[in-house]
């Protein structure tokens, strides 16, 4: 058990119904880099459909029989992960070092993400890794128009995978990509029909993997400062602060903001120049959920200011900035 990480990363593979999650998973499973990964898949719709599409079913893979993941995930997903964890501890399954969870297409990602953190056992053994979201080039645009959970799935992604782009014109694909960039400007985007799918690139290299921290953090700030407008709809913006940040005040402000508006704060992530700390502190949250703050080894670039990237739904960037500044004021 020596090679089992203290905190096993859990990847969420999400995306709308028919957006190619299972196909993506299948391609991922062919990758030798997945050899030490356990996969939890959900059976939904046609009985065993996903199950039969996958070749690599073994003892570490558990099918949840209940159907809708969205309704019942908290109890069942945590039980399934606990079971896998217990079997790994007892040596009944290979000592997997990563867990990938496939959500159903209708799932709001937030309850799934909160499972690990809410469970008193799991939070000591698992942590969230990258969230991978598949977007279908054919139907993605209309899904973003009509289904709020589809927008949420794109906004929370650490990696976006555009599928079926070979079935649309280049202009159509570009229009969808441009739209995705307004919702989520910083997540690397892979075109599944044209590019290789590399498990390592999609699932690993997250903020909590020490070797990849600086690179992961640098990628966040691709949103231009001031590239903000409108109070309506989903938008991303950067809030930068020149002065050092009082950790206590920041904590009270963010918890208060998320308590009232967590539903509309699809993502908050950034780097804080915390008073009394030489190295920056990375903050990373999805809606009401904030990951344990990461103490970086060093600043990712020459920029020494605190910068926070928000992806919000219908909140006014100016109001968020004004509020934070007022709370931090001494």
């Amino acid at each position, binding site marked *: 058990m020596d090679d089992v990480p203290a905190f096993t990363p859990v990847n969420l593979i999400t995306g709308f119904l028919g957006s190619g999650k299972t196909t993506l998973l299948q391609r991922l499973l062919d990758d030798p880099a997945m050899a030490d990964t356990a996969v939890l898949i959900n059976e939904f719709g046609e009985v065993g459909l996903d199950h039969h599409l996958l070749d690599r079913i073994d003892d570490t893979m558990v099918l949840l029989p209940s159907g809708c993941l969205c309704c019942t995930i908290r109890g069942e997903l945590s039980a399934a992960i606990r079971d896998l964890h217990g079997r790994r501890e007892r040596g009944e399954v290979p000592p997997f070092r990563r867990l990938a969870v496939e959500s159903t297409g209708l799932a709001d990602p937030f309850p799934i993400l909160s499972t690990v953190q809410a469970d008193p056992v799991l*939070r000591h053994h698992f942590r969230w890794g990258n969230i991978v979201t598949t977007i279908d080039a054919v139907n993605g645009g209309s899904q973003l128009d009509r289904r709020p959970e589809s927008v949420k799935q794109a906004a929370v992604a650490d990696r976006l995978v555009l599928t079926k782009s070979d079935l649309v014109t280049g202009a159509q694909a570009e229009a969808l990509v441009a739209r995705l960039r307004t919702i989520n400007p910083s997540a690397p985007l892979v075109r599944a029909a044209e590019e290789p799918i590399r498990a390592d690139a999609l699932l690993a290299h997250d903020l909590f993997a020490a070797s990849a921290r600086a690179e992961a953090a640098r990628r966040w700030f691709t949103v231009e400062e001031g590239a903000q407008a409108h109070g309506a709809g989903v938008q991303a913006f950067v809030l930068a602060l020149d002065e050092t940040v009082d950790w206590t005040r920041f*904590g009270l402000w963010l918890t208060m903001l998320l308590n009232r508006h967590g539903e509309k704060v699809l993502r908050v992530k950034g780097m804080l120049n915390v008073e009394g700390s030489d190295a920056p502190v990375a903050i990373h949250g999805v809606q009401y959920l904030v990951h344990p703050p990461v103490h970086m080894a060093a600043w990712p670039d020459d920029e020494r200011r605190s910068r926070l990237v928000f992806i919000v739904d219908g909140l006014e960037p100016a109001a968020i900035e004004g509020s934070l500044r007022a*709370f931090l004021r001494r």
Partner: protein
Amino acid sequence: MCALCGVLGGDGHWTDAAPRPGVFTRNTDGLARRRERMARVAVANRILKLYGLSLSDWQGASFVLSTATGKSELVDNLAHLWAAAEKLAGRPCDPLDPAVIARLRDDHG
């Protein structure tokens, strides 16, 4: 972790993250923990007074949130503070409320 936290299941809130490599926390030793709690109470009271509420430490393990008339509630951590404050105050505690922002600015301007 202390036995009491174990009994209660621990809170695991991000502002009180368990100390481990790579994680930023002030939940390290007794002194740092106590200092952070005191600072937290002081800063929280600056905000809570706008709602007629006050917060105090309870034995270094929880917080007591009280109204001016003495109605009070025990809160474990910041995860529960604002929901409890809204309940006791009978109105939303919204940090984006222009009136709240203006009063915080005046308070220290």
